[in-house]
């Protein structure tokens, strides 16, 4: 009806795409100054990349599920359960076997979750809560607690945690995922389902199949992340992967991927988000803050970023003015 506001909306959409990068830059500059540059020492950079790997890899799978409007909170439990399987098989038969068995655990979990969600229509949050943190982790705890001696993995498996082995794998995975997500019909369908599932169904797409595949990919990527996690920890504990899925979700959402999914989901946002969080965390550690304070700040940052992106998405340019709604403004909004 009025072209001016259309253009405005247009700008805001673009703005919403650059918000994550802006926030990233703010965090970088802030901690660059606050730590007097220490955070960008070669050693710290190496640590940052090293730490980002598990989150990135699991996120590259989870983003398919989030794009279509679902939730997958199994990665942490897959890590616990798959981690034990990796230890059992990997220590005996080597690296390839370790990956194979972790992928099997992750893939099977994803497939089950996909079928339960798509075929039997159980909301993915509930289904993955039941399958992951409750069932799988419980299972892992029982097995691990029955182990008498300390669980330590072989040097061969630990060697996965070196850049020459780790980086090529992660980069290959990244290329495959970027292709699948942004350049394959499957990726388009995932994002379209997040926009309007029924419209995609009416466009003649087998939505059920797409959903199951998305959960499968998410599970497989959790499998990859598991191996990296185990090799990095060089041993197993019952707490392996606790809260892992929350880190992954934070990385995805902090960079403005809509919680409801859709075409706003993008891989670069995950990468930017993961590093934003890590720099935030590492920076705070270097500044001498304690664990619980860090947790609190992370939570506040996520809350404000998600609020910002939701407001921008819903209300467009007017949203900015209403970021802190006063009583009076609220009245006109209702009217």
């Amino acid at each position, binding site marked *: *009806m*009025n*072209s*001016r*506001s*259309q*253009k*405005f*909306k*247009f700008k805001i*959409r673009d703005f919403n795409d650059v918000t994550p990068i802006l926030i990233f830059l703010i965090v970088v500059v802030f901690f660059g100054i606050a730590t007097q540059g220490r955070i960008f020492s070669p050693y710290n950079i190496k640590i940052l990349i090293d730490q980002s790997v598990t989150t990135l890899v699991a996120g590259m799978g989870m983003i398919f599920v989030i794009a279509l409007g679902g939730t997958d909170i199994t990665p942490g439990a897959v890590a616990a359960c798959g981690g034990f399987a990796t230890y059992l098989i990997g220590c005996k038969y080597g690296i390839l076997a370790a990956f194979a068995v972790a992928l099997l655990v992750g893939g099977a979990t994803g497939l089950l979750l996909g079928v339960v969600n798509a075929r039997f229509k159980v909301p993915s949050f509930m289904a993955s809560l039941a399958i992951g943190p409750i069932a799988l982790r419980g299972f892992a705890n029982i097995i691990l607690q029955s182990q008498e001696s300390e669980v330590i993995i072989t040097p061969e498996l630990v060697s996965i945690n070196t850049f020459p082995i780790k980086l090529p794998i992660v980069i290959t995975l990244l290329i495959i995922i970027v*292709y699948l997500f942004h*350049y*394959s*019909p499957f990726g*388009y*369908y995932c*994002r*379209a389902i997040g*926009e*309007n599932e*029924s*419209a*995609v*169904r*009416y*466009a*003649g*797409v*087998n939505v059920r199949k797409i959903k199951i595949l998305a959960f499968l990919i998410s599970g497989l990527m959790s499998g990859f992340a598991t191996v990296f996690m185990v090799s990095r920890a060089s041993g197993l504990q019952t707490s392996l992967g606790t809260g892992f899925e929350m880190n992954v979700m934070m990385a995805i959402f902090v960079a403005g991927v809509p919680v409801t999914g*859709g*075409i706003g989901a993008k891989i670069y946002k995950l990468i930017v988000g993961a590093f934003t969080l890590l720099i935030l965390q590492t920076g705070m550690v270097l500044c001498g803050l304690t664990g619980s304070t860090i947790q609190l700040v992370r939570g506040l940052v996520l809350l404000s970023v998600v609020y910002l992106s939701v407001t921008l998405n819903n209300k467009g340019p007017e949203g900015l003015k209403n970021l802190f709604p006063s009583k009076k403004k609220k009245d006109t909004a*209702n*009217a």
Partner: protein
Amino acid sequence: MRTGDCVLELRNINKFFASTHANNNISLTFNRGEVRGIVGENGSGKSTLSSIICGMQKADSGEMFKDGKPYAPKSPLDAISNGISMVVQELGVLTQLTIPLNIFIGREKQFSKFGIINTRKMKKAAQRELEKFGLGVVDVDDYAGDLSIEHRKMVELTKALMVDPDVLILDEITQALSRDNRDRVHKVIHDFAEKNKTVIVITHDIEEIVELADTITVLRDGQVVGTVKASETTPDKIKSMMIGRDLTGNYYRTEEEETRGENVILSVKDLTLPGVFNDVSFDLYEGEILAFCGLSDAGIHELGEAIYKIGDKSQGKVLTPLAQKKEVESPIDIIRAGGAYLSKDRDVAGLMLQADIKTNIAIPSIRDLAKGGLFVKPKDVRKKAQDAVDTFEVKCTGIEQPVMRLSGGNKQKVNLSRWLTRDLKFIILDCPTRGVDIGVKEYIYHVLAEAKDKGIGIIMITDELPEAIGMADRIMVMHKGTIAKTIHRSEGFTEESIIEVMI
């Protein structure tokens, strides 16, 4: 006009949205006992005007007078207390609540004792209200979310009538209503006006408003073009007032003979959807337009979905004789056979409203756009979308614009273009011109005639008889789930002969 007492007066109303002058110096008077139609193309300012009258927006300048006293509503609630009530175009029902709660929300106190609501009493009262206005076709035990759009409108209308306003504003109320429910609403409007009250009807349907209203105000580009007596005008005169030029003439087909190709392109055999329709069989030929008409319980819309095999409850066969795979088992088979289906419910089962035009156009064709079925080049997607937007003359700022920012007509153009830019053999269209203005309607008919000439078979399911009569080669009239009569164009279509079978 029944009487002449002025109930509501607008003086020099102006409203701007950024640079757009949505309402330009509008002055109007509304009289008691009058049914007033307000018509205009999309973007002519009629919805803005009604939202100002009912307090949803404030005018930038100008005054209003209700019964001679200054009237400046702060909110819809304020408008209601001043005796002005409205049924909005975007439906306002609360889907998670039952119908009685929907009707009495905000007024539930009358049923409560010690803070507990007597739902049984409320239900009875709701039933009574619905019946009082002759809209008792709705089952009050349902949740509003389970109702069809038609029944939701009945609930909304009851809610608006219940406060017994002096002025009732109806925004696109009969859009999407089938003939029988439309008649019910018309009766409500007439009864209401008989009580010396005023009804303002905002609509796209010119034929309807000429019959229904006493007077009609035409808006164009935010200005009043004129107000005329319905008895002294014709739909064509109104239409040329709306678009500011004479219509190019007849936008329907002019020939009186049916034409079609030799080959059967889609064959439906004994298709049954239990409880909705039974044993429907017919063949669709190349280059044929086959229209389906019927009342709301006739099953015409469900038939369209069943042919597309969406949902798996229907029995019977749908065949595509020219395709490699003959029997249709799922929507994908229809699409592979060169078919397409356009739902009546564009915003739910058609478009992704928040996504951009590009994505919307690309999704049905993404498999074909992928090189070797694997790689989708963003450039190809953009080209496909740009071509579709250019061919269908979609008014937009660019293919990145979100679809929800488009007018209804342009949304429908996007919706149609997604399919018609494909290499089609046949298409099933459920109410293709619903909620679009005349300019776009004319355009759609033109596109359909072109598609027919190219040999595309078209099934057109429609609630509008003039459309079926104007475009079809064959009309199948359905009555309570069976095909009651088939009429050929050469036999001559008349509204009477169709309605006779429908009822």
